[in-house]
């Protein structure tokens, strides 16, 4: 499973963009299986995983340069 470290996450939603791009063929965070929620000011406050348990590519982790996401087997 993918685990998020809220301390390292800056709320940029880059993981969501990467997921929608590689899995759905275009950019729009609405079509991402991983979701980062932010409050006003963009501070990350929560996240949830959708139906991505079988994803092997892990583009979300690949594009998170702040290392906020990690794969835990």
């Amino acid at each position, binding site marked *: 499973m993918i685990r998020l470290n809220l301390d390292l996450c*800056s*709320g*940029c939603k880059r993981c969501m*963009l990467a997921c929608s*791009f590689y899995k759905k063929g*275009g*950019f729009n965070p609405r079509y991402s299986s991983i979701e980062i929620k932010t409050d*006003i000011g*963009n501070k990350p406050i929560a996240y949830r995983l959708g139906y991505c348990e079988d994803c092997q590519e892990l583009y979300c982790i690949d*594009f998170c340069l702040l290392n906020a996401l990690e794969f835990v087997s």
Partner: protein
Amino acid sequence: MSWWGRYLLIDLTERKYDVYEVHEGLVEKYLGGNGLGVYLLYKFTKRGSDPLSEDNPVIINTGPANGTLLPMASKLAMFTKSPQTLGFTKGFCGGEFGQEIKFAGWDGIILTGSCHDWTHIHIENDKVYFNKTEELKGSYTSIAQKKLKEKYGEDVKALVIGPAGENLVKYACVISDLRAVGTGGIGAVLGSKRVKAITVRGERLLKPRNPDKLIDFIKGFEEKVHKHPGVKNLVMFGTAAGVMHLQHIGALPSYNWQRETFPFAEKISGESLRSKVIKDISCFGCIVPCGKYSVSKDTFTVGPEYEGIFSMGTAIGNWDLDELISLDRLTDELGLGQIQTGGVVAWIMECYEKGLISRESLDGLELNFGNTEAVKKLLKKIAFREGIGNVLAEGSQRASKFLGIGESFLLTVKGTEIAGHSPRAVKTQALGYAVSNRGPVHCDIRPGMEENNIVPLGKPEGKGKMGKDLAVWTCVVNSIIYCLSAERVVGYVLNEEILNMVNALMDWEISMDELYKIGERIYTLERLFNVKEGFSRKDDTLPDRIKKECTEMGYRTTEEELVSMIKEFYNAFGWDKEGKPTKETLVRLSLEEFMHDL
């Protein structure tokens, strides 16, 4: 390139909307963002129109980088005729609104006419809803956004004005999330149209024209950004990183520019601010978390940015960090353009301390430098146009004329208060404030090369020609639309990095000369907009204090230095001695269609 080729054209008077198509040829000439913004504004503006009338359009624009994985590219652009300068203006901010326009299937929004009642416009992909919104009138910008999200869903992105915009304060800003489009009084123009808020929800997939080429570029580029030493400083301290450096070189303006060092600079430096930061946050899709989520005793903000520290700190003699955070938040909540607000407050403070205006005339406010409690009361008076606030809402230049005081220490150009980078020490900034088409901002001709001693500080020689290269850079970068803070990574003038970025985003193979010409074309069209409105050489000037009074380090920019730089700058652009583009220049830049305005 992620490009739809269509703008949402909204007629506020008739409450109608339509598609306005923008063909590929225009993109090749103007790129997007800044370039297409000035082109569309030009097309939709009548010469001599009142900025606060239904004749003045507002363009909300995106660029080819919006919504993609390119880091440092989460920007929104707005264009209109400014109620403060009465000429061209543009403004940019981060956040998520620009991307959401793209996801809704539009490249931008063109607002024309005026609403009859206070209105909230909701855009849901192809559909537009006009909602009467008396209940949001008078609300602070964060409250308005919160209410809109409660009603329309957490995922909508909002653009709102505060009480200042509603009350037509000449330097009112526009707020999205906690970011501000601060320049030129665009909030007042929205207020004149009775548009309190715009929300958008977009559910389309944005597809690059050449995905492999774009991702290849992004993969290489993001590594460079991530490892760049200049970025580390930005992540740690935000734009406030520059405070102590500017103090050391004697270019930190304070007390209405009576000084250019601040005795208490350390107390409000980026390093000190760090103690108030609880989270480093990014704009959408960006790997550089330069936003400083800071808390004070009673509130929070994102920032303050360097310009906030100048305008709500050094300029008004405030060195209390908690008060700085509170004032930073208050200006955004009221929807006041922060730089201009700081300029107005600092000016009236100097008037008061010099005995030119009585306490009674200031509605009992004791406006000494550093009195932040009085400043908070004054900001509310300005935003709601109460008492002395009604006079100051017009800006310091108009207030000076009305009150008959303080003309000799006005810090304005084209009727607008100057930003917080020194035009006395930094000669490119002196030129930039004087010639900038939108008034004296630090974002058209950037001060970084001189402030960081990449070129000699305080020397005017060669700065006219260099000013052109800097202006061309910002026009291209603002058309992508890319973050100006990235200059420390991608360089201060056009280079291969920006060229490769443009070619990857657009799937082009243009040359450096062609890209440079796009920048020249954009800046020249901005200039032509102002020429059409009657601007000329006489409007490209600097405040007397900057020209006549030396700083502690002995810096000033004399009239002779300024004249020499302006001459070199005009020549480099192919403009005549009145600052008007020549016919030959318009032909060279393929701007023949605007020839009749010369």
